[in-house]
């Protein structure tokens, strides 16, 4: 079965990995999306499927044929980091970093759909991505800075 991952065509065997998360991690070695709850409860596995946010642990590999999948590894443009990645760095928006790949994809999707969200809109849109380290205030600040055109500046 073929689909596109971060711009490159890739082949996986859906029988070996029923979920998209397992296919990415185990067959393609793409480990940015993390396995944490495996039940769509935490957002650590968040990826984009044809531009839409999905929990990869709940997405069936077989249903992804022909789709475009984006993971955190595909967020940067070559060596140039995405503005949100820059902003997460400058705002210290990752402590342990385990939730960070999912947070970044959720944030990128939010800003594409709503370039100037209010803080409450950020909170609502990001509430499907848990962070046990409690980086939320800094994630909000990092998203705010990009939305306000301040780029990565703290």
């Amino acid at each position, binding site marked *: 079965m073929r689909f596109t991952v971060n711009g490159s065509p890739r082949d996986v065997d859906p029988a070996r990995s029923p979920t998209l998360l397992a296919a990415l991690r185990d067959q393609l070695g793409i480990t940015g999306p993390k396995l944490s709850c495996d*039940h769509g409860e935490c957002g650590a596995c968040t990826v984009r499927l044809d531009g839409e946010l999905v929990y990869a642990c709940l997405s069936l590999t077989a249903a992804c044929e022909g789709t475009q999948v984006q993971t955190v590894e595909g967020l940067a443009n070559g060596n140039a980091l995405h503005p949100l990645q820059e902003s997460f760095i400058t705002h210290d928006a990752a402590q*342990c970093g385990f939730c960070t790949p999912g947070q970044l994809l959720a944030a990128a999707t939010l800003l594409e759909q709503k370039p100037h969200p209010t803080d409450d809109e950020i909170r609502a849109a990001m509430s499907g991505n848990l962070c*046990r380290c409690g980086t*939320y205030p800094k994630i909000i600040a990092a998203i705010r800075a990009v939305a306000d055109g301040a780029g990565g500046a703290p």
Partner: protein
Amino acid sequence: MSEKRKGKHTTKRGRFVQTVVEVEGRTETRVVELPAFEPPPWTAATPLTIVGTSPLRVDAAEKVTGRARYTADIVRPGMLHAVIVRAPLAKGTVTAMDLDAARAMPGVRAVMGTGDAPAATRLFRRDISYAGQPLAAVCAESLDAAECAARVLATSLRVDAAPHAVIVDDAIAPDAPLVRKDGNTTAPDVVERGDVARGLAAAEVTITREYRTPVALHSALEPHGAVCEWNGEHLTVWESTQGIFRVRSDVAKALTVPQAKVRVLKDYMGGGFGAKNGAGAHTYTAALFARQLGAPVRCINDRRAEQTDSGNRPATVQKVTIAARRDGTLTALVLDALIPLGISGWEGGPAQIFHELYACPNVRTTEICVYINASGMQAFRGPGYVEGAFALEGAMNALARALQIDPVALRLKNLATRDERANREFSGNRLDECYTEGMRRFGWTSTVHRPPPTVTRVKHGIGVAAQTWPTGGGPPSYADVRINSDGSVDVLAGTQDLGTGARTILAQIAAEALGARLDTVRAVIGDTERLPYTGNSWGSMTTPSVGPAVRMAAEEAKARLLEAAAQMLDAPVESLSTNDSQVLLDSVVALSFSDLCRKLGNVHIVGHGSRGPNPELAIVTVGAQFAEVEVDPETGVVRVLRVVAVHDAGRIINPALAESQLHGGIIQGIGYALFEERHIDRARGVTLNANLHDYKIPTMADVPAIDASFLDGADPAANHIGARGIAEPPIIPTAPAIAAAVADAIGVEVCEIPLTPWRVLTALAQ
């Protein structure tokens, strides 16, 4: 006592002395090596240019690009996958299990059941004493195959069920089933100072309350896990852990292999919060299968296992009596606490903060630990103090209301000016300033003098609570600083970064001491084979324990570098100094580190550092938090609107990272106050909410405006970098501050957390 050889080229080793070390609130006496020299302390007046600033987290780019490798991301050639089969009920005996059926499943390579693991691992026993206990394990070519076989094994399991006790009331009932052979309770641990009876008699006001706190689950997003690989007799363990050396000694002991043949590696980890302090069932399972099969094996907890059997903060029932004169002066504090630990655990009880936070001549605490048929506790951020603070600070706020005294004024009146528990002075304690600065930032107006709230549906309230926590750290901790032939610097210390920022702050300390540019310094951590020993990253200890060792190693490396420079420049070493990776001669740049080191070629400049003993002082981090909430009396829903936190932790190495730690503690405290509670079904003995949907941790939408800060300054009496720990303190006062704000809002105290809508409505109905 051991005298080291003193030759011409002294190895600069010290003698051995006894010192007192505090770990997670417990005190231990240890014999430690006294460093041959300790640099003069960095005081508040010492001009520092790298320490005290906020350079970006050195590994942030790895984390935002997905390059950071966590234990579950480790893939080894030919790696197999192990899954543990766990007990479906709380007490009983395994009578049958069809291991052969599992062995016959596709892809399965090995199965272990009752009696197949060395006794020291405590794995796969016939007797079940809690639901979730490991009973067997399967190893297969893929995780899916292992999970399928594990289900077959679980289905074949036959168990004779026995009566259990999973809540404290059942375990202490007269006809309670025996949870452990030696009984269901520990002997009461009574600690008393002064004369409580006289203190109670002298009181003009006495308040008695019963507080209850829940079992809280660490819920790190990265579950416990290990990858194990044998190469002949050598075992390599990749483990998500707060203590690589502890994992090494655990594994070496359980599998009877010498520590020299076990290497533990930890690069990135997805949080620990106290639950990842040693080897666990997953580690032993992976190591045993890997040895048996001659292939690498990965074993990672799934979320259910993680929420069931990887540790927890135990519940408490705390009866508190607080007695005072009418002017607010405390005359007695009494605590009677029951702590259901689970099937095992150590004394991390709520009592200690009762002896430490306030000046009070008469204090008595009694703690009884209760064993129940549930997974054992593990340290969880501020163990004991979090639970104790909820009761102590709740009672203080109740006293303030009863006396019509402002709760901050009441606290200032009873401020501890020395450590009355251990009868010693503080190295530094500016809790009074934390209150005043917090009041200023919060705009605190006394709750008691406010006009009665107008009749709106949603009610607002404000509250305050304080914290203390022992954060001195201590020996043993070692570090090496190595200057490479291009002038770049490696800091070598066998510590771990849980997401705290240890990698960054150790590099800052070394760069500061060495006079090197921060971007030339790299901290290498997380490898027992190649790095000097440091202790676990627990008890807020890493900065005050490893930090001084790193500074000392850097100072020694700098001394050697300058000796070499003195030769090269033909100048007295006293006239040389360093700054910005350059050697200065009489304050003028003479030579860069890189030129100097290039000329030295492969002459190795290495400094060795160790953490010296602690002074005879109480070393604590203190702080005050203020919360504002909104309560809807019709739905019982509590929303936290803002939290202001001010803490005194001595010198802050990196304010931005320290602020992140405060946020994390406060947000976990909000979860503890409002949502987090493990539910065990009393009849069946199994956890009902062993997932992240029904066990609720705060989401971004639950998080209020947080203003978290530290007092400026340094604590040179604590250690020579002047820093104390900060990881645990911020979670301690959050829940009692929120509970006080809720009481202020609705006029009724709710003495049990979490403050769920149901509990709030029940309180309002009374």
